Each structure stands twice: as C-alpha cells, then as structure tokens.
C-alpha cells in the first residue's frame, strides 16, 4: 500500500503511474445506492483505493441455496416477464443468441425488413400502384424487385441465424458433472441451475460463475487460466474457504451441503464480488478469490467442487458482453441521407410535373375531345392524381435494389477477407474472419487505430536473449570458441535432460563456458536465476512445468534450467535446484518480493554449507543505487545494459551480497517485527527490505525479449505512412509500454515524449487562458493553436491515473457525492485552478486533450482499465469525428472493440471474448496492414464506385420519363415498356456493377501495400460524398437528356425504310431503352479498371439478356397467351431492322459517353491523384516489385538511454509461497496478498 499512501499524501503531484485506476464500471445509480450507508470517504481519496468491502447481507439481493433447485422458483424470486407470465429471476445456464426459430422466422424477419425505410417505401408504392385512379405502372414493376430483395435478405438472415443456432447448441450441450439426487451426473450446461453443486476436472471450462467449495490441491488452491476473459495465459489461482475445503471433499458431504449464499446482484464487474455464506449457523465472507468465473479453464487441479452462483445470462462474462452496438458505416449514413435527398427530389419533381399537368389539362387537355375520359375532375384534382402517378413512375430514382446489392457486395468482400491466404496463420490454422458483413468499406476509411499491447502487438512470450556476465556479453550468434557467426545455429542442449526443447539460444560460447565450470561468475549468474524467483514448479509426467506470475520470470528460470541450473522443487522455506551435476537444497530465509515501487526482488538463502547470501535482481536504476562501490564490472555492465535497452530488450541487473550470521539475526528481528505490524505493514516491510539490500555486488545483467509478433514494426510503419494514427492502450506499466513502443517503432528517438504531468500542465494553461478570455458569443471558432509549437515529433505517454485526472471521469462522481454529503456547492475554483467549473469546461478540456493527443505522432496509454480504453476511443470518435478501429485479444479489450467503429480481435489464442465481440478477427497483428490497406481500400473503392454508378444509372434511367412528360401532357406516361422497367434494375444493369463492386482493383495488393498513400482518399471520404453524389446526379441527368432528346430529334419527322409506321411510341420506347442499356453497360465498362473474363462476360451478358428478353417479350407466342400484358408484339423486330434507328442508338450512346471520357482524361491529366500516378506506372512498379524483396529487418538507430527493466507484470507468488497458511488468515490481513494478486491480473 505504500505507493498508494504516498500518492495520497502528495496528492498534488498527481496520480500514481503504477496503479491501475479503480474500475469505473459502476453507474451513478450504483454509486448513489452504495453511498448512503458508507462511512464518509476522505475527500482526497485517490482512484487507486477500493471502497470498503461491504459484506452485510441486508442490501445484497441475490441469495442462492445449495442443493435446492425448488428454492429458486419461490414466488418472491419471480419477476413479471409479460402480463401474467412470471419467471424466476435466476437465469438458467443455457444461452440464447439466436433471433428466430422455425415459427417466428417469417413474421419476425419480414417485420425487421420492413423496419427499413426503403422496403417500407416500396411497400407503400405497391399499395399506390393498386389504386386504379393513380396507377401508372402495373403492380408487377414493384412487386418483382421487392420480392427478390426481400428473399435475398431473408436467406442471408437465415444463414446467419442458423450459425448462431449451431454455436448456441454447441455451448449449451457441453457437459459437466452436477450433483443430482445424491450423486454426480453428467449434465448439459443448459440444464444446470443456480444452487447446483458441480465437479470440475482439469482442463474443463467453468460453466457458470461458481463459488469454489473444495479442491484436490493442497492449500485448497485451484489454478485457472483466464485467457478467455482477459487474454492472459499465465495462471491465476482461486481458493476455497478453509471450512468448506476441509468438510466438503467427498460426494456425500457435498450432497448434504446446505448453505445459503447471499451476495450482490449479477453485474458486469470482473474484479469485484462480495457475499456471505451462511452455513450451519455461521457466516463466512466470500469474495472474488473464491469465485470461478464462467469462461475460465481449470488448470493443474485434478478436481474441484463448486456451487453455481450465477448462471447463463447472469454470469459476469455474459454481463460483460454488453449490448452489441449496431454499427453502421459512414457510407451507410451518407447513403441514407442520399436516399432521403432523392426522395425529396422525387417529391419535388413529381410536384412540378403535377402542376404542369394541371396547367396542361386546363389549356390543352380539356379541349381535346379525343382525351375525354368521362370524368368531371377539375384540373386541380387531376394534378393531384398526376402527382401520385408520377411518384409511382419516378420511383426508380430511389434504387430498390440498392440495399440488397450493397449487402451482396459486402458479403462478397467479407468472403474475400475470409479467403485471403495472406491473412491465414498457418501455425495456428487460423484464417482471417470477417464476423460482420456490414462494415467492409469502413476499413478503407480508418484514421485511428487503438491497439492493445499484450497478445496483440506482442506474442506475450518472453525469451531470454542475451546476458552480460562479468562484463562479457553473451547472446550474439557465436561458436563455442567465441567466433562470431552471421547466422546463428541454435545451441544443442541435448546434454541436459531437463532442458526445455522450446528454448533457443545462439551463443555456443556461453554453454562452453558453463560446461567447463571455469568461470565462477557465470555459474553464479545462473544459480541466481534458478534461486531468486517466485516461480512454482509442478512435476507432470516426469516433465517440469513452471508456473510464473510474470512471463519474464518464467523466461529467466527456464533459461537457467537449460543452462544446467534446474529449479526442481520448492517448499515453504527451501529451494532445491540441480546445479549441473548435483542437486542442492537451499534454505530460504526470506523472500523480499517484487513490487512496482521497489522494482527489484531478493531472496536470502542459507547455503548447505551455512553461508548466508542475498541474491537480488531488479531494474538497473534501483540496483545501481545500491551497489557496493567495490563492485566490479559496473562500467561494462552499464554499457551493455544500454545496448540491450536500445535493442528494446528488457533488462534486469543481477547481484548478490554475502551476509554474516549476526547481520542476518539483527535484520531478521526487524523483519519479523515489520511483518506483524498492524498499520502500514507494506511500508514498514519496504523500509526493512531497504536496509538489507545494499552494498550489492554485480554479477551481470540479463536481457529478455518481449517478443513482438512478426512484422509488427513494418505494419505499424506502413500504416503510419497511410496517415493512420496508432494509439496503444494497455493495462501494462509505463516502462513496459514505452519499451514496446520503441521496439515496434511507434516511438523513435527523435520524438519528444510527454508524460502526464506535462500534459496536465499544458491543459491547465490552456483552460486558464480560455477562462480569462471573456466568452464572446457567436464568434467563429478559430483554429486552435498547436499545443506543441516546437518543430519535431511528439509522443504522449500517459497513464490511466492521469487520464482520470485530466478527464475528470471519476472525480465527477466523487465530487458530486462529496457535495451531497457536505450539503453545499464548492466555491467556483479560481481561474488558474485546474478544476473545471461546469460541464462545458469539462468538455472543452476533453476536446483539448484529444486535440493535443492528435498532434502527437504516437500516443501510449498505459495502466488503463477496459472502461478507460473505451472512453479514450469514444473521445476520439466524438471530438474528432474520425473513423476508429480497435484491435485487441482479451476480455479487457472487449469494451473498446465494441466502442470503436470497427473492432478487430486477435484469434487463434484461447481467449474468445475479444473475437466474439469483434467485427473482424485474425491471428496476427500484421494482418491489419493487409486488412486495411488492401481489403479496406479495395472495399471502399469498390463500394464508392458501385454507389456512384448505381445512383447514376437510376437517374439516367428514370429521368427520361421526366423529359418525356413535356411531350405527353404530363400524363405520367412512361418512356419505356413496363417490363423493361421491371427488369432494368434486376437483370439488365446490375451484374456488371455488382462485379465491379466485388472484384474491381485499381492497383493490385502489392502496390496497395507499397504505396500506403493510396489509402488517404478513403480517410478523407473523397470517393463518395455529396459532391460525388451530385456529380452522379448531373451525370444521370445529362445522360437521360441525351437518351430522350436524340431519339426525340430522330423521331420528330421521319419515316421508316419501307415507309411504314415511322414514329410510333413503341419503337420510341425500344430505341430509348436500347440506348440506355448500351450506354449504362458501356459506362460501367469504362469504370471497370480490372477486366476479368467474368466482367467481360457480365457486360456482354447484360446486353444479350436485354435483347434476348426484349425479343421474347415482343414475340408472337407470348402475346397470344397474355395479350393484355405483352402489348409490344413485334416492336423489337420492326424497330431494330431500321438502320436509321440503329444510327440513332449509336449517336445517343456516343454523345452519352464521349464527354465523360474526355472529362475523365482531362482531369486525370491536369489533376492526377496518387492513384492515377501509381496506375500509370503500374507496369513498372509491378516489375520492380517482382525483383525486390522487402528489406529483411529494420535497424533501429541507437542513441538514447532507456531503462527497460523486466518484471513485466506483477508481484510474484511470494506471499503464497512464504505463507501458504496465511491465505486462510486473509480476512484479517486486509489488502496484502489479495491486492497484490489483483494487481497482477493486469486488466
């Protein structure tokens, strides 16, 4: 607790960088509720502290009775679900994610589909078309496309839902042993209920949130892997209450177990649980350490028993799933606006034409005796009818197949992502997976990436890479003789029966040195590694399995093991190791555990020969302060530490100290005294530790590589070139995060790194400045001046504590709480105070922070909670209006994955939480580069092209009616045959553009990756926006003009070749329709930049289908069968044998296309885009790409000095090791081990 207290006492210095801020997941309501009875908190309460654990049962609403299923169905636990149907508030353990079943599919799905405005619109249109007074088009022109659209969507929904059904079934049918009728029986997960006693075996998934009762392990421990919850693969332990562990080992004992658990209602907080167990008239407190959460996996524990507390939807992991936000792309939103715009235009045009009809009828129509229709309507009413008639005629302006086509394209894009071999991770057999099919084009517009560190950027594997012993550096590839090698050959550890085969080391000279046993220091080095740690060992089928709290420690102990110093066993106060050829047992006198403040750990050992020695390993900064002046190798070690740090290796200094018996005795007494101190024990202990850890003698330094995933730096560099900003949000410590920042090239030495204090100060100044300037209303927001006026790159490294401080997240609630308690308002702060006066200032400060962060090249937020991760993402979304992407692998990333516009999960690991809530999932971070720069870019370009063309083709198609209106008395006469209108969007013009939407590539994937700049137009949304929409609109208007007026001119005064029927309406319809079909198909050909045989086929097919269907519809046979529906008999053959009409068609097509080609050429010549340039030189670049390979590795420039000490995660199991029994006494030892372990959970 020391650091916490220090932070308290020096509160003005700001929050402590080491502490993970307390999770903020409670809502205001929760806070209100809990605040009533709570003792008043000290006002300066820091975010790091926990509220007192309240175990009173009175306000805990959840009670569970063991072995009594009926209890939970009692009326007082019933809750009204619907009218009079009541249901127990305790969920069953089955989960249900599917939406439809066989009965509800059709009505529900139709209901969902008609919630879409477009579908509803077409339904309304269909109804209009049935009304005889206004029907201008037969009903089938709308019904056929609508049914097609609905069917395609329904089929897709059905497929999705079937997949969900399968998934649910798989999970619900998993089996676990449940105690029923006095014995354990295999039961499906879905049949489990609250209050059941279950037996879990090794490697089982925990089926629900379970109170642990007993375990087959000593110390009532049970190890769990929480990968599915937080993505971490190192083990955590849970333990049963002593009383239950002792008394509930046997089946019959468990069967008679009758206890009542009262605890909090189900909630989503993975880090909190309070409750009490009433058993045989005693009451026992229960907390999170006794709870096995659903989704964990039992490890290293043969059998354990537990009591189901929360089942199914009540479990914490399910609660954490949160609501799946319906994500929509910017294009979607834009598209909707455009549909509304078109709709408005449609109404305007129809209104105009209706007015036109009114006037026309008054002045011309009413005089024409031949038009007499037997009705006595006035021109106003006729205009009104005409309005609806035109709404029907012009309805094709709103493209009915737009949405379904977009869905098809997205589905195809998703499939391409799934199929991409270059995003397939062979090692884990994991292909990339697009889990949603609605967001693809958004991948081409990403501006900000928020990434988790552990497991995302890194592999979460620590590897012992190098060391410096006695001033000599080992680790570079070398032969046994010390001759450097270019390419290393791994050392063969065959001589060592205990060697871990996965361990690789390149330097043969080190092994030679050890085996010769000449160099004492080298031996001491590895002896230290094998003795000074908190790793636990397990003998499994003759194999040694190490369980380390932090992967760094594991790596070091494994390295020692391979080099012949094998950690074999430990008891509470001894450690047994094998030193090359003999075993030796050391007595552990004291274990001075690591904590983030000390940055070192020591062990004091009594050697078999009676000597007492202290071994210490720790961060170079703290070790060097404590070295004896006589210590050798200080200089050389320092140099190699620098080198290691620059190679972004994580270093530790190793040293020792011999202690005399007297000295030990004296210190031991102080230690004992400190360790039983009732107040500030941690601080007291730290102080005592300090007294012995001095005058150390240097042995050497170790260097561990926190292995980045392959290709991460390259991917980050390339994404940065595409103007994508990458923020790292991690629960890790500042040093670790910074270190990784350097190793993945996010941070570079020429960057100025700003930390929390600096940021806070700048923000405070900015805020004070704003406060001093009198608020002027209505003034334009002038562009904010930059926060970093100095030239050069900046980076931000900020901790969760500082984020809270800066953004006032936690403080708001606490302040409000305090205010209510004190019953008064705080005085307005002075202008220079950093405290915000009101919500506006708070918001402005957030804006400032986001602005500042966006000025930086790189931002790293460390020690942040999942909630904060999500908050940071939403801040950027909110204030920058930017498209964001989050990528992560653990449950701690779920929140941010759901918040961001696009969530990406790293799959292939055990954890599934992130993947389950993600939109895209793949196995390696580096695939992100391909996902964005290739698939995202392509998807965006394709979708934009598709939409532009789609709007164009519908305008060109529909507005011909508009021009025709001026020549037919605004009578809503269509310019084409009805069947042509019906089939135009479905058959004649959709395939080529669909293919462009699916397959078009302006440049291939290699060039997309080579020129990340090509990505930028997507970020700016340059390819599809209102401007482009209006260009499409005008293009459509232009083409429709040509398509109407050229045939108009040709038909105005002519005769056929044989003199007969020269200018009839049906021939006119055929000529306009043919011109239109040829024009739009050639237009899409112009826009196709990637011509495969499929495209070619589709274009030719569309035209062929058009002519084929037209000749069929115009054939004699079909007229004979349906004379009333097919009235164009013989038109096609009559019209299209006239060369004159063909010349008209050719001219129409020519005038429609030539200006477009000309303009495209001129604009590409005068204002070439990056894409144009790349395309122009495509051939050349492709040739180059063939020749050159990527630079194999990249070199980091050296220079600065950084400390990258290794202890990546947390305190070790020291408490557990040294005081196994103390675990049971934990309720009295508040804080202590529990906190330390929790710290280690590395949210």
């Amino acid at each position, binding site marked *: 607790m020391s650091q916490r207290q220090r932070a308290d006492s020096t509160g003005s210095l700001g929050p402590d960088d080491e502490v993970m801020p307390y999770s903020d997941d409670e809502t205001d309501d929760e806070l209100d509720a809990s605040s009533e009875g709570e003792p008043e908190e000290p006002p300066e309460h820091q975010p790091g502290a926990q509220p007192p654990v309240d175990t009173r049962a009175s306000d805990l609403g959840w009670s569970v009775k063991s072995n009594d299923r009926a209890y939970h169905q009692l009326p007082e636990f019933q809750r009204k679900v619907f009218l009079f149907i009541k249901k127990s508030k305790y969920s069953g353990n089955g989960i249900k994610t599917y939406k439809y079943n066989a009965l509800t599919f059709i009505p529900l799905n139709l209901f969902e589909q008609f919630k879409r405005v477009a579908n509803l619109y077409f339904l309304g249109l269909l109804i209009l078309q049935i009304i005889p007074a206004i029907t201008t088009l037969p009903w089938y022109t709308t019904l056929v496309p609508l049914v097609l659209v609905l069917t395609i969507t329904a089929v897709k929904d059905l497929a999705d839902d079937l997949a969900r059904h399968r998934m649910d079934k798989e999970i619900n049918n998993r089996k676990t042993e449940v105690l029923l009728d006095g014995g354990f029986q295999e039961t499906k997960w879905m049949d489990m209920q609250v209050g059941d006693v279950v037996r879990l075996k090794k490697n089982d998934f925990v089926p629900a949130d379970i109170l642990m009762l007993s375990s087959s392990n000593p110390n009532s421990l049970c190890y769990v892997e929480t990968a599915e919850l937080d993505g971490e693969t190192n083990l955590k332990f849970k333990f049963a209450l002593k009383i239950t562990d002792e008394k509930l080992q046997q089946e019959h004992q468990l069967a008679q177990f009758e206890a009542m658990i009262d605890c909090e209602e189900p909630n989503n907080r993975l880090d909190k649980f309070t409750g009490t167990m009433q058993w045989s008239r005693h009451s026992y407190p229960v907390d999170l350490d006794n709870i096995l959460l659903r989704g964990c996996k039992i490890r290293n524990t043969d059998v354990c028993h537990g009591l189901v507390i929360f089942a199914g939807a009540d479990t914490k992991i399910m609660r954490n799933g949160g609501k799946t936000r319906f994500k929509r792309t910017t294009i979607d939103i834009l598209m909707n606006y455009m549909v509304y715009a078109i709709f408005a235009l449609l109404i305007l045009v129809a209104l105009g034409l209706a007015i036109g009809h009114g006037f026309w009828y008054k002045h011309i129509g009413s005089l024409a005796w*031949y038009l*007499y229709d037997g009705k006595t309507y006035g021109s106003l009413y006729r205009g009104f009818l005409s309005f609806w008639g035109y709404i029907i005629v012009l309805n094709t302006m709103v493209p009915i197949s737009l949405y379904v086509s977009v869905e098809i394209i997205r589905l195809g894009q998703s499939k391409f992502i799934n199929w*991409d071999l270059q995003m*397939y991770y062979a090692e884990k057999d994991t292909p990339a997976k697009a889990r949603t099919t609605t967001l693809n084009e958004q991948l081409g517009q990403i501006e900000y990436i928020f990434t988790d560190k552990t497991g995302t950027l890194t592999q979460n594997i620590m590897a012992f890479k190098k060391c410096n012993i006695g001033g000599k550096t080992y680790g570079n590839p070398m032969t046994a003789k010390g001759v450097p090698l270019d390419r290393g050959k791994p050392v063969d550890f065959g001589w060592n029966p205990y060697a871990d085969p996965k361990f690789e080391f390149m330097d043969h000279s080190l092994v030679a040195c050890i085996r010769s046993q000449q160099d004492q220091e080298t031996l001491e080095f590895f002896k230290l590694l094998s003795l000074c740690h908190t790793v636990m060992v397990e003998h499994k089928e003759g194999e040694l399995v190490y369980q380390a709290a932090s992967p760094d420690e594991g790596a070091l102990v494994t390295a020692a093991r391979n080099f012949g110093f094998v950690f074999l066993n430990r008891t509470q106060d001894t450690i047994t190791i094998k030193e090359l050829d003999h075993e030796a047992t050391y007595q552990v006198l004291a274990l001075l555990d690591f904590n983030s403040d000390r940055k070192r750990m020591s062990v004091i050992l009594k050697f078999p020969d009676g000597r007492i020695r202290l071994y210490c390993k720790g961060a170079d900064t703290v070790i060097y302060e404590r070295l004896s002046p006589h210590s050798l190798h200080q200089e050389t070690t320092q140099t190699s530490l620098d080198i290691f740090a620059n190679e972004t290796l994580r270093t530790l200094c190793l040293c020792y100290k011999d202690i005399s018996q007297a000295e030990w005795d004296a210190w031991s007494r102080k230690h004992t005294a400190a360790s039983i101190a009732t107040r500030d024990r941690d601080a007291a202990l730290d102080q005592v530790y300090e007294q012995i850890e001095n005058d150390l003698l240097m042995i050497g330094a170790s260097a561990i590589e926190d292995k980045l995933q392959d290709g991460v730096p390259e991917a980050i560099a390339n994404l940065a070139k595409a103007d994508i900003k990458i923020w790292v949000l991690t629960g890790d410590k500042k040093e670790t995060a910074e270190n990784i920042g350097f190793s993945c090239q996010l941070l570079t030495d020429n960057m100025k790194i700003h930390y929390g204090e600096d940021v806070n100060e700048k923000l405070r100044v900015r805020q004070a400045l704003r406060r001093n300037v009198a608020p002027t209303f209505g003034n334009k927001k002038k562009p904010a001046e930059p926060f970093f006026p100095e030239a050069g790159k900046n980076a931000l490294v900020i901790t969760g504590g500082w984020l809270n401080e800066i953004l006032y997240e936690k403080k708001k609630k606490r302040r409000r709480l305090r205010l209510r308690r004190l019953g008064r308002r705080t005085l307005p702060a002075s202008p220079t105070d950093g405290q915000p006066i009101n919500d506006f200032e708070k918001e402005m400060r957030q804006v400032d922070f986001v602005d500042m962060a966006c000025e930086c090249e790189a931002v790293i937020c460390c020690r942040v909670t999942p909630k904060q991760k999500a908050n940071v993402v939403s801040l950027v979304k909110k204030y920058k209006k930017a498209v964001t992407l989050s990528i992560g692998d653990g449950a701690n990333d779920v929140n941010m994955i759901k918040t961001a516009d696009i969530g990406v999960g790293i799959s292939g690991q055990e954890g599934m939480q992130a993947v389950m809530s993600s939109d895209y999932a793949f196995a390696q971070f580096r695939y992100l580069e391909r996902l964005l720069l290739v698939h995202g870019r392509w998807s965006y370009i394709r979708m934009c092209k598709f939409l532009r063309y789609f709007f164009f083709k519908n305008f060109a198609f529909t507005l011909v009616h508009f021009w025709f209106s001026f020549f037919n008395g605004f009578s809503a006469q269509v310019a084409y045959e009805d069947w042509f209108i019906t089939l135009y969007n479905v058959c004649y013009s959709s395939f080529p553009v669909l293919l462009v939407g699916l397959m078009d590539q302006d440049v291939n994937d290699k060039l997309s990756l080579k020129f990340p700049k090509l990505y930028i137009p997507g970020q700016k949304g340059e390819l599809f926006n209102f401007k482009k929409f209006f260009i499409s609109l005008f293009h459509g208007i232009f083409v429709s003009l040509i398509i109407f007026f050229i045939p108009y001119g040709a038909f105005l005064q002519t005769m*056929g070749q044989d003199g*007969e029927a020269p200018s009839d309406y049906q021939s006119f319809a055929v000529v306009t329709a043919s011109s239109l079909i040829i024009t739009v198909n050639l237009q899409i050909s112009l826009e196709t930049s990637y011509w495969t045989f499929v495209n070619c086929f589709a274009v030719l097919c569309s035209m062929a289908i058009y002519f084929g269907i037209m000749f069929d519809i115009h054939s004699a046979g079909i007229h004979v069968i349906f004379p009333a529906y097919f009235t164009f008999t013989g038109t096609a*053959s009559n019209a299209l044998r006239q060369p004159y009409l063909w010349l008209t068609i050719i001219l129409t097509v020519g005038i429609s296309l030539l200006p477009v080609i000309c303009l495209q*050429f001129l604009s590409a010549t005068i204002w070439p885009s990056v894409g144009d340039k790349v395309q122009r030189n495509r051939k050349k670049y492709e040739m180059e790409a063939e020749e050159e390979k990527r630079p194999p590795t990249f070199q980091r420039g050296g220079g600065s000095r950084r400390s990258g000490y290794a202890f990546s995660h947390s305190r070790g199991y020291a408490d557990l090791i040294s005081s196994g029994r103390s675990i049971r006494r934990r309720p009295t030892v508040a804080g202590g081990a529990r906190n330390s372990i929790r710290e280690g959970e590395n949210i």
Partner: protein
Amino acid sequence: MSKEENTANRPDNTAFTQQRLPAWQPMLSAGIVIPGFVIIGVAFIGIGVALFVTSQNIQVLEIDYTGIETNSSCFKCKNTSVKNCNCTINFSRDKLFKGPVFVYYGLSNYFQNYRQYGASKDATQLTGDLSDLGDPSYCKEPCETCCPYRKDANDKPIVPCGSIANSMFNDTFKLFQIVNSSNVAVPLDGKGIAWWTDYNIKYRNPPTNPLKNAFNDTVKPIFWPRPAYELDPTNPANNGFINQDFLVWMRRSALPNFTKLYRRITEGEYAKGLPAGDYALVIGYNYPVVEFDGRKKVVFSNVSWMGGKNLFLGIVYLVIGSLCVVMSIVMLIVYAKFKFPDEE
C-alpha cells in the same frame, strides 16, 4: 496429427479467392483516348455526311389542309357542323417526284401518347376474343381499360372499345393528276401499310363468319360513321380489327406531332413516281382538330435506305464528329502540357 488436419481451415488457393484472376487493366491513356477520339470523330463525320446527303435527296411535299387560313379551300370544312365536307387542294410538281411515293397524314398537337388515352383499349378484345361481351359482369366493374368508351348509353358494349379506337382518323384522300384539265386518278394502294405483326398477330378478327355476326348486340364506337365490320366497303377482307387504317391508327405515336402512313403510290405508271405536272388532292374532311388547336396535313414523301427525310441526325452526327476531332486536339495540347513526370 496429420498435415491435412493442421490446415483444415486453410483457404483455397485459387485465383478467384485470392483475387488474382487474370485481368486486363485498361487505362484512359493518351495513346488510346486521343487517337480514339480522332477515329470516332472521323467516323461520325462520315456517317453525318452520308445521312445529310441522303436526307437532302429525299423529296417531301407537305400540305397543311386544316383550313385555318380563310383563303384555304378547306376553310369551309373547319366548322364541325358541316357534314361530309370535301375540299380540294391543288399543287404542282415541276419535276418527277421519284417513286415509290408514300402518302401520309399528319396531326400536330395531338397527344396520342397521353397515358390514359393510350391505355384505353382492350387488348383481349382486339385479338378477336369477343366472348366476354355477353358476360353480364362485363362493364359492371369500374371501367378499367376502355373507359369511357366501353358501353353506349343503352348499355350495349362498344366494339372496338376505348378512346384510341373511338378517335380513329377518318379523313379520306384522293389524288388526281390534272392532265389536260381532266382529272386522272392516281391509284393509292392501302395494302400492307400496317406492321406485319399487327396485321397477323396482335390484332385478329373473331373467327365468326360472316364477320358481322360476331358484332351482334354490340354498337360501333360513338365517333365512327360505320361499324368495324364495314370499315372498308371496297374490300371485305379489310374489315374488323384488321383494317389497315385502323391498325395504323392503333399504333399510337410517340410524340404529339406525328405522321402516319395513309397510302402508297405503287401502281401503274405512278410506281416510278409522280411525274411533273399539276395535281389535285381531294380531301374528305371529317376529323375535327381545330378546337384543340391541332393541325392536319398530308405528306408526300419518298424514302431512302435510312427512311424518310430528317436532317437532324445528319447534323448532329456532323457536329459531334467535329467536336470529337476538336477535343482530341485540345486533349493533345493539355496532355503535352501536363504530361506526367515519369518518376514520382
């Protein structure tokens, strides 16, 4: 574990799934666009010249006989109250009007493309199917297609029903060459002036023989002087729904100003054309157009490979062709000025 199991999820490595389909990536490069425009321009100019010249060589004679002008001989017929009004219009040709010559009648400001008008017919009836006329439900429901000319005041079905049929053009024309101040009739051939498909497929007479019986219990369209089965008293085969003039009328025009084929001049010495001389056109003026400000005309025309006279297409071809050539020069200049630097 076998290797196959290890790669169970491996995507297929095909050109399609990997988006590597062999493809042609054309670009609008200067090397294609500029010569393309020149070629298209030249071709368009060629077509334009051909169309223009052909069109110029077609002879057309248009005679407006609406009778608006008081000095027109048809002025007297303008008033609809005058029944069976005839008027004669004289014209002369100073050179041969090359045959075959077609005679058209033309109407302007006449909206045959009006939607409700165009829909006002019964396609089934016109295929010769009169069976449902006897059905009492016929015309009971609100009029769907033939409104308002479905039944007459006595509730008898009108055959052929509908506005189009009712408003059939009924002016008649006779052409005489004035040879030595005597009128020599120029034979006008009314056979095969309608589309073959209309005559043979789309419109059929009821199979009843004689045709008249099929029309029992029906009435003629209100506007018609004679029932459908007596449309052409000279030729019994040219009656009913397959009367050529009726078919021509039923094929409604695209635009409000239109001409429809009336007769061909294909017989005797006039097959080669109308020789130079004076002619008299005798018009049976029946069709009222003045009240809606319409115009009626008779057109004599011969045709070429491209049909009748129409300068529009030729001129547009010429204009577009020239523009193409001009634009290709502009593009060339622009290209020379803004040529991409080869290196980026």
